[in-house]
């Protein structure tokens, strides 16, 4: 497997100018053909139906950003309601119309916002936006390939995501509102239009959008796996891969093995909704409708199918961030990543265990207690590879020579958030604590910190770090620093107090707490959290300004390797064309982390091992 590039891979994508991409055969004419190739691109093939992995990555990124802006705005709106439950704001009615009659967001709208926020952030931003962007961008560049194994499928993957986005967006405008039963869409609530207005046509669109999304995710994932296994450049053995690639590889494997299960769950749900089957339905009497004829179904079956993806999904979100953070920490500490094999091993362990812990979301569903015990055991085992990763990151910084680039700041922020959120996972993974804390704000705090904000930080780290490679320009540093510090402080101010709310038993997904003697003391705190959320959101707009301004007007990159990094993407020209390397693809001689070795600041992967040098790690 190690020398696959000796075989001739003909790249179907370059249909209008078919040429081979192996190092051997490209030697003679590679340069010229790529130069001429660039000129054949018109606007549509270059920017819209592009098959260049770098352009597809940017498409994923910008679509993801669109959803992040929208999904974030939704959280601002429902936090606004939660923070000011008794006041009315006419401007809300101006924006939301009938969903905020009299200037107060209605419960229907509140739940629609909560649900769409969750769905969009988990799937469209942190799955497509994160691994879609960076798997596309980094895999060919870092393994030394001219493009993905199938650039055409890669393009399809984006366009399925785009169509999924359009369908999801359109669901916001149907008369009965978008789906509003929570992003996990548990039936019977999600199966019965009479149980909630959001479960009417909004849910049909939600489920279609999600099915299209699964297709997109599978097309992308298969491509990533095949590319990593088969298209590494000469000398790039698996153990010489940068950790980003290892992380993206495991991410893709997780997605390919678990998304189909989610799809099967959704198909059964479609049948229950539209064709009168009873997979999930039994013994139901709906107010105002009467008893339904469905009998013998099992509502918990859906939860098993959902969480069989749902839990690996958490790692699909987290692993790419872990990989990028490992890379960025090493580059900017000017030190090798500590314990490379342990890092790969722990990624592997996490990927395996991720499949075996799904029912820890279901401890209080009446699950067989013995089965619950097994899931407690395996769930808490995940803390071991996670701890190994944290200690290895810490040791990577230890006695380094740390440069605080914006990417590095976000990488450090990621580690901090991953620790904070990961530790509360030890609470919730223990069923005898979950029986108290399940579905309270403690859970909200836990998963927002460890998965939501931490992965966002990983994504920001990646964007700041690879922006010069993506656009040939730098982002503004000062705005980056402001963005980082406000977001880090803000994230803790928002989510840290929620642990306390959870420890009072305060349930999640409540529109209003004023009738509850047990939870109504948090009015002031809720207001405080909402204000911080608005400030943090406003700061993200600053990031957007920085991003789009810098694409066109940022300081130009002068040096093709601005970070003095070892990985292959920095051996390409400042603005690489389709095909990445104008000449031969570089051959790899060493791992990606020879920083500070033998007194040398850095030694790129394509530099041969010197005669007197000890190889390896």
């Amino acid at each position: 497997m190690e020398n696959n590039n000796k075989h001739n891979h003909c790249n179907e994508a370059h249909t209008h100018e078919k040429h081979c991409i192996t190092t051997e055969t490209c030697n003679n004419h590679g340069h010229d053909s790529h130069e001429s190739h660039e000129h054949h691109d018109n606007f549509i093939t270059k920017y819209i139906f592009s098959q260049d992995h770098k352009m597809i990555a940017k498409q994923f990124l910008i679509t993801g950003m669109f959803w992040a802006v929208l999904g974030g705005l939704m959280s601002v709106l429902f936090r606004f309601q939660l923070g000011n439950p008794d006041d009315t704001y006419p401007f809300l009615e101006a924006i939301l119309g009938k969903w905020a009659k009299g200037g107060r967001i209605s419960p229907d709208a509140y739940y629609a916002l909560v649900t769409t926020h969750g769905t969009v952030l988990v799937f469209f931003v942190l799955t497509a936006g994160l691994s879609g962007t960076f798997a596309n961008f980094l895999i060919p560049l870092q393994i030394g390939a001219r493009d993905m194994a199938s650039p055409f499928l890669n393009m399809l993957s984006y366009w399925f995501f785009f169509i999924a986005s359009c369908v999801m967006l359109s669901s916001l405008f149907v008369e009965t509102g978008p789906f509003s039963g929570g992003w996990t869409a548990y039936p019977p609530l999600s199966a019965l239009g009479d149980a909630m207005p959001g479960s009417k046509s909004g849910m049909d669109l939600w489920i279609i959008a999600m099915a299209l999304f699964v297709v997109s995710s599978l097309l992308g994932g298969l491509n990533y796996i095949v590319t990593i296994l088969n298209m590494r450049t000469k000398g790039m053995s698996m153990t010489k891969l940068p950790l980003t690639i290892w992380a993206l590889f495991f991410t893709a494997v997780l997605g390919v093995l678990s998304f189909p299960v989610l799809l099967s769950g959704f198909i059964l749900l479609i049948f229950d909704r539209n064709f009168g089957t009873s997979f999930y339905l039994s013994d139901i009497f709906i107010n105002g409708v009467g008893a339904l004829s469905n009998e013998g179904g099992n509502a918990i079956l859906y939860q098993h199918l959902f969480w069989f993806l749902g839990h690996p999904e958490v790692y699909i979100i987290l692993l790419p961030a872990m990989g990028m953070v490992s890379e960025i920490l090493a580059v900017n500490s000017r030190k090798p990543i500590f314990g490379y094999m342990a890092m790969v091993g722990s990624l592997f362990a996490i990927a395996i265990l991720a499949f075996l812990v799904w029912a820890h979301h279901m401890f209080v569903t009446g699950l067989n207690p013995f089965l619950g015990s097994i899931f407690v055991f395996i769930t808490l085992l995940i803390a071991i590879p996670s701890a190994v990763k944290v200690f290895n990151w810490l040791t990577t910084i230890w006695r380094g020579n740390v440069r605080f680039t914006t990417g590095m700041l976000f990488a450090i922020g990621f580690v901090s958030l991953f620790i904070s959120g990961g530790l509360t996972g030890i609470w919730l993974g223990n069923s005898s604590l979950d029986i108290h804390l399940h579905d309270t704000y403690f859970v909200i705090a836990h998963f927002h910190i460890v998965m939501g904000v931490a992965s966002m930080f990983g994504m920001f780290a990646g964007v700041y770090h690879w922006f010069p490679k993506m656009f040939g320009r730098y982002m503004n540093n000062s705005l980056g620093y402001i963005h980082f510090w406000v977001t880090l402080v803000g994230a803790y101010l928002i989510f840290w107090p929620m642990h306390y709310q959870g420890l009072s038993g305060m349930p999640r997904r409540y529109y209003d707490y004023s009738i509850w003697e047990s939870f109504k003391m948090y009015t002031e705190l809720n207001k405080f959290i909402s204000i911080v959320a608005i400030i943090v959101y406003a700061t993200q707009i600053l990031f957007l300004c920085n991003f789009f301004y810098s694409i066109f007007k940022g300081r130009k990159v002068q040096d093709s390797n601005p970070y003095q990094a070892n990985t292959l993407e920095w051996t390409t020209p400042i603005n690489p064309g389709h095909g990445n390397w104008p000449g031969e693809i570089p051959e790899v001689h060493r791992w990606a982390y020879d920083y500070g070795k033998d007194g040398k600041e850095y030694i790129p992967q394509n530099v041969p091992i010197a005669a007197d040098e000890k190889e390896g790690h």
Partner: protein
Amino acid sequence: MTTYLIIAVLLLFYIVTIQIAKTSEYVSIIKGEKESFSQNNKINGFLMLAFLILGLVGVWYCNEYLYDTTLLNKPSASYEGERVDQMLWITIIVTGIMFLFTQILLFWFAFRYQHNENRKALFFVHSTKLEIVWTTIPAVVLFVLIFFGLVNWNYFTGEAPKGAMEVEVTGKQFGWIFRYPGSDNVFGKKYYKNIDPATNTLGLIFEDGSAQDDIVTEQTVYLVKNKPVKFIIGSRDVVHDFGLSHFRLKMDAVPGIPTTLWFTPKYTTEEMKKITGNPNFTYEISCDQMCGNGHYSMKGVIMVVEQADYDLWMAKQKSLYHINNPDTVAPTTLTTQTIAQTKL
């Protein structure tokens, strides 16, 4: 008007920030890349340390400010919940130590090893010894937590003590229905297609004699102090969750699949009012599983009373069958003999 003003101020804020940032970029070009890099690095290095210190102060302050609002400073209302509290404290201590240790190292290292022209980073690739240490220590600690957790879990999900009273609870959009088995201590049969929202909210089959003495109440359930109670939990529409934060327990209510939860109340509602210092205190049942647009209002109440008060209350209850058929003899007052006859 104020809306436009706010938008204007916000825009101005963005423009000013971006302009300042742009200027700082020009300044750094004039100053030289090296100079401005080392200055920025120093600022961020200092902020790392500042964030660590202020962050820890913040954690302490947040605890001061919010600790009293949580249940951590109130005793568990059930004996079983005391085990949850004990587990919580063990876990807080273990994870708290890890939290402080790793966060302090992270931000201290970032500050301490910030870029310095004269320092060379250490080429330190791996150390089997270190890696074994930080694989085994978490493993050992986790096994302890798993052990305590599973012992408690088995206890919570195990059989209810003999002599526990049984109460059935059914969730619906958006409220709770309770059923006591009546004097025969047997829950009568029910079928969801018999449900009539006005007269038979649970769909009891009155032809089944043991259903005739079943007592059905809505929203409020009475329990006896120190007497174990086993709830048989169900739902008649969507998935709900029977959330009892004061007792530290909860369990889902799933249509078609009954679940159970048992515990022993430790304090009466009146005693809890004194303990919490809140004269309005009640044991609230919160629905903890998203169940529709009235989810946030799905409240029930548990009244924990002494046995004598419970008997008084129970004596006043009429069976649902009797409420529907006032001319029959109230089955709750039936003697065992007549019950036996009805069953025939």
